[in-house]
């Protein structure tokens, strides 16, 4: 072989070596990018339970690092796929749904397998021409020509579909499929985490409607899961009792369903007042409300007066439905109470116990005889921080069962 031939061969070999080095460098840089994005996504998942934020961040990252410009994440909801997030679409399509087995996304969801499809436009045209049918409107990039869709699964459960589209005919290769497979596992885990968390939140919210948060706070607990039988706390609190007067004859004129609707309408008008004034409802007893004001008797008195106003509004409203007005009685007393958990291991209830409860109930009971709506005890008047706001009208003494001493009672009106 001549010298020139040899040097030519060496040159060729060198350029071939360089090409291979470049190729390996490319592969290495891609792997580095993959690792980086996986780390970032992992920490995102740990740091946020808000799926909307998480999806947005993941899709932006995938765009930035791998150039996936147009992505969508759909969630499996009752065997339909709903667009939960989109990136790079002119029309976001949030909330649009795809039935199982429909189009690329629906087919991927149904078969639980990744799909990479090129030349979408040509293929769609082919079917449409042959079938003479129009395509259904599905959420998609306008003029999409390539698409990868991957099922998002946690164990055997399909939680959604992640899809990337492009208006280029040959946009994705096997490497893209690989990276999406890795990322989609993480996205699926995040969706599963977030939905478990949301479920827990819903449960906690439902619980708080049965056991008020304020009651738990009184016991020094954050959550109902921390409560135990015998948990208790003793403290001076104010009890408000209210009841619809002559409700039994009224309810006899209604069907059971009507009674329920009526009571819920009434409680829906009255109960919010308690909360607005710093109290919470310990329990409903039919149409009666027993509320606790842990802070000050003043809040209970203000709430009682507000309930009177709300009653007037309620009566105006029901008069339009042809119902007679109702009257209520409210009794308020303040004193030492024990709030705690009672019952037995299998059936617990949070409640308050004390003489004070009986007295408030008794005061409510005598409002009818005394022809007033709101009746408070002397203790309440004495404990008010600023009694100048109200006018108190002494209505004598009331005997309370089991108590030797009679209780001085007062009617209350706002000072004008």
């Amino acid at each position, binding site marked *: 072989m001549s010298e020139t031939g040899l040097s030519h061969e060496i040159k060729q070999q060198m350029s071939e070596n360089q090409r291979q080095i470049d190729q390996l460098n490319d592969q290495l840089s891609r792997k580095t990018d993959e690792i980086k994005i996986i780390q970032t996504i992992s920490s995102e998942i740990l740091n946020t339970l808000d799926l909307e934020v998480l999806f947005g961040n993941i899709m932006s990252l995938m765009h930035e690092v791998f150039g996936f410009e147009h992505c969508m994440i759909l969630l499996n909801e009752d065997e339909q796929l709903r667009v939960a997030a989109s990136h790079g679409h002119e029309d976001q399509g949030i909330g649009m749904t795809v039935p199982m*087995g429909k189009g690329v996304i629906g087919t991927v969801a149904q078969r639980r397998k990744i799909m990479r499809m090129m030349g979408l436009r040509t293929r*769609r045209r082919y079917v449409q021409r042959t079938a003479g049918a129009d395509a259904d409107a599905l959420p998609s990039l306008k003029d999409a020509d390539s698409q990868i869709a991957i099922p998002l699964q946690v164990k055997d459960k399909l939680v959604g579909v992640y899809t990337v589209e492009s208006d280029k005919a*040959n946009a994705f290769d096997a490497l893209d499929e690989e990276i999406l497979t890795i990322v989609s596992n993480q996205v699926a885990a995040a969706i599963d985490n977030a939905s478990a968390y949301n479920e827990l939140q819903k449960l906690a919210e439902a619980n708080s409607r049965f056991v008020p948060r304020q009651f738990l706070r009184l016991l020094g607990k954050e959550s109902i899961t921390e409560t135990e039988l015998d948990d208790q706390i003793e403290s001076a609190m104010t009890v408000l009792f209210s009841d619809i007067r002559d409700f039994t004859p009224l309810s006899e004129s209604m069907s059971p369903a009507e009674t329920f609707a009526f009571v819920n309408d009434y409680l829906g008008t009255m109960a919010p007042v308690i909360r607005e004034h710093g109290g919470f409802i310990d329990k409903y007893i039919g149409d009666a409300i027993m509320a606790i004001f842990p802070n000050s008797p003043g809040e209970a008195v203000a709430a009682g007066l507000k309930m009177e106003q709300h009653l007037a509004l309620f009566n105006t409203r029901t008069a339009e439905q042809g119902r007679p007005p109702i009257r209520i009685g409210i009794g308020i007393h303040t004193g030492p109470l024990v709030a705690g958990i009672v019952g037995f291991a299998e059936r617990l209830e949070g409640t308050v116990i004390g003489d004070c409860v009986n007295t408030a109930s008794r005061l409510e009971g005598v409002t009818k005889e005394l022809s007033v709506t709101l009746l408070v005890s002397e203790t309440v008047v004495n404990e008010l921080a600023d009694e100048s706001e109200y006018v108190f009208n002494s209505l004598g003494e009331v005997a309370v069962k089991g108590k030797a001493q009679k209780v001085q009672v007062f009617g209350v009106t706002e000072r004008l």
Partner: protein
Amino acid sequence: MIAEDLIPALQGIVPAWIVTTSDENIPNCTCVSQVYPVDETHVAISNQFFSKTFRNLQNNKHAVVQVIHPADNSMWVLEIEHVRTETEGALFDEMDMQLAAIASMSNMEDVFKLQSAYVFKVHSVSHLTEAQHPAKSI
């Protein structure tokens, strides 16, 4: 045999043409939506309707297929030979899934059903250079 560079031509971006012959040696040329890459020496086409192509292949297993590379519209001719027909397995599933995805967009999933995947051995791949520079008419 099938270089990586040729893969984009086997993605169904531009339809392909296949030529088969009948038992009387009458050629038949028809359009197929995709020639699927199977491995380095095999490709596959989908059989949705029992057309003349598939009838012809029962007599003569040899066929010629022309695919177009979407990057530069270059044409490639593959000499192929039918070696087996698959009605299940990974290849069949993949082809079936793609067809179902497209057909379901037009509610045609019951019509466009993959009957079988025809697998061919590739004997040669050649670049159809003449077609690249068609004679200009003056």
